[in-house]
C-alpha cells in the first residue's frame, strides 16, 4: 500500500511532543487501517520481543533530549511505521545481526580442514619469524597473535566436528551391522 502525502503545518505554540502527536494524527488519517492492524498485533512491548526491553527508557530520554530537528525525526518514525507491510516481528533478529557471516549454512565440501589449518599455522609462523628478524613493531606482532588465537579456535571447532562425524559414522556402522 502506498502512503499518500501527509499534510502537516507546524504550530510553534505547541511543545514538540504535542506537535508530534498532531503529526501522528495526520499520518493516521491517511493510513489508520493498516497502522491499526500492525499496532494491534504488537501491544505489549515490541522492544521486549527483540531482546531490547532495557533500552526503552533510553528512547524516552532521547526523545526528551531532542532539541533540533524533532519534526524530521517524528516524520521519519511515523512515515516508516505507516509503510510497514506485515508481521515482520516474527522474522526479526533477536540479537545484533552479524552481516555476511552465518547467513548461509556450509553446504557441500568444506573449504577448511585440519591439514589446511596446519598449513596456515606454518605460514603464519613463517611470517612471524620474518617480522621478528626484521625487528617489526608491536602492532604487527599483536595482529599475528590475534590471528594465531583465531586459527586455534577454528581448529578446535573443526576437531569437534570431526569427532561428532566419527561418532555418527560409528553409530551408523553399528546400526547397519545389528
Amino acid at each position, binding site marked *: 500500500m502506498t502512503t499518500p502525502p501527509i499534510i502537516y503545518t507546524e504550530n510553534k505554540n505547541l511543545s514538540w*511532543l*504535542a506537535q508530534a*502527536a498532531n503529526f*501522528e494524527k495526520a499520518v*493516521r488519517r491517511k493510513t489508520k487501517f493498516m*497502522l*491499526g*492492524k*500492525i*499496532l*494491534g498485533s*504488537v*501491544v505489549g512491548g*515490541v522492544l521486549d*520481543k*527483540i531482546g*531490547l526491553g532495557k533500552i*526503552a527508557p*533510553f*528512547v*524516552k*530520554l*532521547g*526523545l526528551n533530549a531532542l532539541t*533540533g530537528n524533532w519534526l524530521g*525525526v517524528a516524520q*521519519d*518514525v*511515523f512515515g*516508516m*511505521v505507516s509503510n*510497514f507491510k506485515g508481521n*515482520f*516481528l516474527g*522474522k*526479526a*533478529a533477536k*540479537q*545484533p*545481526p*552479524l*552481516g*555476511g*557471516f*552465518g547467513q548461509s549454512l*556450509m553446504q557441500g565440501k568444506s*573449504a*577448511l580442514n585440519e591439514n589446511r589449518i596446519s598449513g*596456515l599455522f606454518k*605460514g603464519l609462523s613463517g*611470517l612471524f619469524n620474518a*617480522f621478528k628478524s626484521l625487528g617489526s613493531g608491536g602492532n604487527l606482532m599483536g595482529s599475528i597473535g*590475534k*590471528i594465531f*588465537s*583465531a586459527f*586455534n*579456535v*577454528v581448529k578446535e*571447532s573443526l576437531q569437534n566436528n570431526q569427532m561428532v562425524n566419527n561418532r555418527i559414522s560409528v553409530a551408523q556402522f553399528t546400526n547397519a551391522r545389528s
Partner: protein
Amino acid sequence: MLAEQQTIREELGISSAEFTEMGNVGAMYYQQGNLEKARTIFEGLVELDPQSADAHSALGALLTLQQQDEAAIGHLQKAIELKPEQIAPYVNLGEIFIRRQKLEEAVANLKKAIELDPDEQDPGANRARAMVLGIYQVIQADNKATDEIGLESEKIN
C-alpha cells in the same frame, strides 16, 4: 615481507570461501552464546583482512551486544565505508545511538537499514523496524494525555 597494502590473508593465500567459513564458525559460536570464542575469531579475521566489511560488521555486532559502544562504532562505520549496501551495521549503529540517547542519528541509521530491505525479509532490517516501532510506541505513550482519538486497533481489539 608484506608488500604495501597487502593483507596477511593475501600473504597466506586464504581464499574467500575459507575466510567466510572461518567467519561462519565465529557466527556459530555467536549464535550459541559463546561470545569469547566468537570474538577471538572475529578479531583475528579483522587482523587477517582489514578490508573485509564482513569481518568489521561481525566484530561490530558482537561489541554492540557486549555494549562496548565506542569500539563497536569504529568497526560498524568501517564496515559501512567498505560495503555501504550491507544492512547489519546500520541496524547496530541504530541500537547504539538509542542507548546513547541520540535519537536523530539512531533513526537515520534505522531508516537506512529499512530502505535496503523493502520486502521485509532481512532479519536485521526487521529488527530495525521493531526498534522504530518501539520508538513510535514511546512517543505515543508520552502523548496519551493529549491524544483524543483512539487508535483503530484499540477499537478493534
